[in-house]
């Protein structure tokens, strides 16, 4: 078979950067753009991710159809090796670029080889926890991490920087400066900036984890990819039969291991003459380009060498298996699971599957948070237990669920938040609203208000209506007040009432994650799960 042309390295660089640009483009498209249907497959990279797919299938005990396209990457890896990491993965490109910018001159740790196997143990650990229906993959999956970090931290920060600086001239009393500022802001807003400044809980914490991944570059090139990434580990396991051969397969005796210094993943460790770690190779072709003697060649063909991968120890495997087993009770057996009670104010997005299924499917990627038109979907911290970290919940102090919007179900790669038709969405019960009569103005103060009633969108009639009641107000005057009430049968818990309520600090009405209607003579078994 033919020798692989050296210009492939250029092709790789271009592809890798173009795909990062595609990732960012799809990220920007993950929003309402005039129709309730998204134009592009915005969650493409997540759905291509075989690690997320595999762990979700195991944890959910089902094949999730949206993930089936990840089979393409599996086949690609079987035939051509761990190409994903070198050519496709947007996290890999991000790491490469930031390494060049910040850590170009840093030196590799002397004994970094011992870290390489961590990613395999981590992968085994995550597969074991998936077997117990825990879904921890999203915490370690690079595409989840990147999507989540860009959504929750990086984009809001960039947006704030641009918005503040572009508008800094606006309030100045010089008309050309004011106009120029307004004009520039409008132009940027058209193409790059958010419609409204997005805000998210956990933005700092989320960024910190990304920061650590980048900071590890100080100690080693692609520290994350080489040592930690469970997706990389899975792809390495699929690589032994890849049909690409490298020549030479060992370090050249007359060279001081130049390949290892150049190699993104340090695949020529040790001092001896053992073969390089082919399974780990991401085919960046840096070594081919940089060999002073022009000796490195890649070609297509069957590779019959024996030593190809990383040595794993039995102790290490036993450790990760037992850690996986023990994690199940630590995360799942707690007051939340035993009482079947989430905190009352913890409301999942429309189309969410049952809570138990939710925790075993959600990829924690943040796509729904990104697409939510009113910024209402926020990442949870520990409200749904430790395993609920970064799962979506609605926060009605920040936004509300727009009645005619179905975007969150369209972007969820694991269909944890299901796609709903507009009709289904109108009827999907996220929770029920309850008045706090000590806070609600007509009840507490005897003053008409009705902002909640005004905004209530439900059909065939408003779930918030009112009755005229004669009351004595706090000053002792008797008057007629319009007192609002909630029709539980109709309320879907969209939360616009709570969001628009003019009572400061804590609204006079809140949505609670109760789905059933309480009425006389009606019983059914089971709680929230």
């Amino acid at each position, binding site marked *: 078979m033919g020798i692989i042309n050296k210009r492939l390295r250029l092709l790789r660089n271009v592809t890798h950067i173009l795909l990062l640009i595609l990732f960012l483009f799809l990220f920007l498209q993950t929003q309402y753009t*005039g129709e309730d249907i998204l134009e592009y497959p915005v969650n493409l990279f997540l759905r291509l991710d075989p690690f997320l797919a595999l762990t979700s299938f195991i944890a959910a005990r089902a094949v999730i159809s949206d993930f089936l396209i990840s089979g393409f990457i599996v086949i690609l890896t079987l035939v051509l090796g761990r190409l994903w990491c070198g050519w496709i993965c947007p996290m890999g490109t991000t790491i490469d670029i930031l390494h060049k910018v910040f850590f170009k001159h840093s030196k590799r740790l002397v004994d970094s080889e011992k870290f390489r196997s961590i990613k395999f143990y981590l992968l085994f650990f995550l597969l074991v926890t998936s077997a117990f229906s825990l879904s921890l993959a999203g915490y370690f999956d690079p595409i989840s991490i990147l999507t989540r970090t860009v959504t929750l931290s990086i984009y809001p920060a960039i947006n704030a920087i641009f918005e503040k600086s572009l508008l800094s001239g606006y309030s100045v009393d010089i008309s050309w400066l004011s106009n120029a500022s307004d004009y520039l802001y409008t132009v940027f807003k058209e193409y790059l900036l958010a419609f409204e400044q997005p805000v998210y809980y956990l933005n700092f914490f989320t960024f910190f984890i990304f920061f650590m991944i980048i900071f590890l570059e100080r100690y080693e090139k692609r520290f994350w990819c080489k040592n930690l990434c469970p997706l990389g580990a899975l792809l390495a396991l699929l690589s032994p039969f890849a049909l690409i051969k490298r020549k030479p397969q060992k370090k050249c005796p007359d060279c001081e291991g130049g390949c290892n210094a150049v190699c993104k993943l340090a695949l020529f460790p040790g001092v001896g003459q053992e073969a390089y770690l082919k399974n780990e190779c991401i085919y960046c072709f840096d070594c081919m380009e940089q060999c002073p003697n022009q000796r490195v060649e890649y070609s297509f063909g069957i590779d019959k060498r024996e030593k190809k991968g990383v040595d794993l120890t039995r102790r290490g495997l036993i450790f990760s298996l037992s850690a996986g087993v023990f994690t199940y009770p630590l995360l799942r057996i707690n007051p939340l699971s035993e009482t079947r009670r989430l905190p009352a104010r913890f409301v999942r997005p429309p189309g969410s599957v049952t809570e138990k299924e939710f925790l075993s499917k959600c990829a924690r990627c943040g796509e729904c948070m990104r697409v939510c038109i009113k910024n209402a979907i926020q990442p949870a911290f520990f409200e749904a237990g430790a395993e609920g970290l970064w799962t979506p919940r609605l926060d009605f102090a920040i936004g509300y669920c727009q009645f005619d919007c179905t975007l969150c179900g369209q972007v969820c790669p694991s269909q944890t938040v299901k796609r709903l038709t507009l009709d289904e969405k109108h009827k999907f019960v996220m929770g029920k609203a309850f008045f706090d009569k000590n806070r609600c103005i007509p009840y507490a103060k005897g003053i008409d208000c009705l902002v909640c009633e005004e905004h209530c969108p439900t059909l065939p009639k408003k779930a918030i209506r009112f009755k005229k009641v004669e009351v004595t107000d706090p000053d002792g005057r008797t008057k007629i007040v319009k007192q609002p009430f909630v029709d539980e049968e109709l309320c879907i818990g969209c939360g616009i009432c709570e969001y628009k309520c003019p009572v400061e600090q804590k609204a006079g009405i809140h949505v609670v994650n109760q789905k059933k209607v309480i009425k006389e003579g009606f019983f059914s078994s089971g709680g929230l799960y």
Partner: protein
Amino acid sequence: MNRREFIKRSLQLGAALTAAAKLPVLDLVRISRAQDKPEPIVATGKNTNYKNLVIDVMDKLGGMKAFVSPGDVVVVKPNLAWDSTPALGADTHPVVAKTVVELCLDAGAKRVMIFDRTAHDARRAYKSSGVQDAINEIKDSKVELSFVEKHKFVDVKITNGVSLKKWSFYKDALKADKFINVPVAKHHALAKLTIGMKNMMGVIGGNRGDIHRGLDQNLVDINTVVKSDLTIVDATRIMVSNGPAGGSPDYIRVKHELFASPDIVAADSYTAHLFGLKGTNLKYVNIAHSAGMGEKRVDKMKIL
């Protein structure tokens, strides 16, 4: 210039700009444009062709040129508050909005701005209402349909305010030469009806929920700051229940009617008859009448 020097220079420039930014902002207390007591003329019309309807009704008032002078910057303020389609009647009809803008252009307006501070998401509301697409069909650089931007609100002292002494208003609405109010006539549980005066909620900032306590007086106070030179009430279809958001065609009665008046109080008061009410049933109309803003008595109006 080396890097160090560049950074130093940039910081100096930044400091200078920051200092400049501390200059006092424009004093925007507005000179009242509209006549203090406009003539209580209400032009009416009924037609299934809404473009002709607007043109005919405006002709009865002497055409748009009676209101818009060549070179004017005009604000056309439809109701775009809700993410709702034209058939559901929560927002101004797109043909009505578009025709009003076209008439302003014909009258020689220099710029026509269209905006509303929405209740639902603005992107969705502009789109679903059909108004965005209709306005974009005009294809004239003098027409500017824009979303309301937070940074363009300025605090205004309300000199004649009874309950509101200070509130933030949209700069474009304050600075326009002419303000044309194009509300849609709807049921509203608190105000009974929302027509022209209530439509002015779309040019104010702040927490509008607060405005609902003592809504009637607050509406009058808002309308003393931004006065409507012309109010065109879209009654092509009216919402008789579950307003102002609506959501179902069951709440709608199709009327094919439209009223226009230089007197916003007269316009609101006259429109009430469509709902089997009198203008005097509306508290804010009574307050506005007493304050001398306009005429509430239909028998004192000139109905054309």
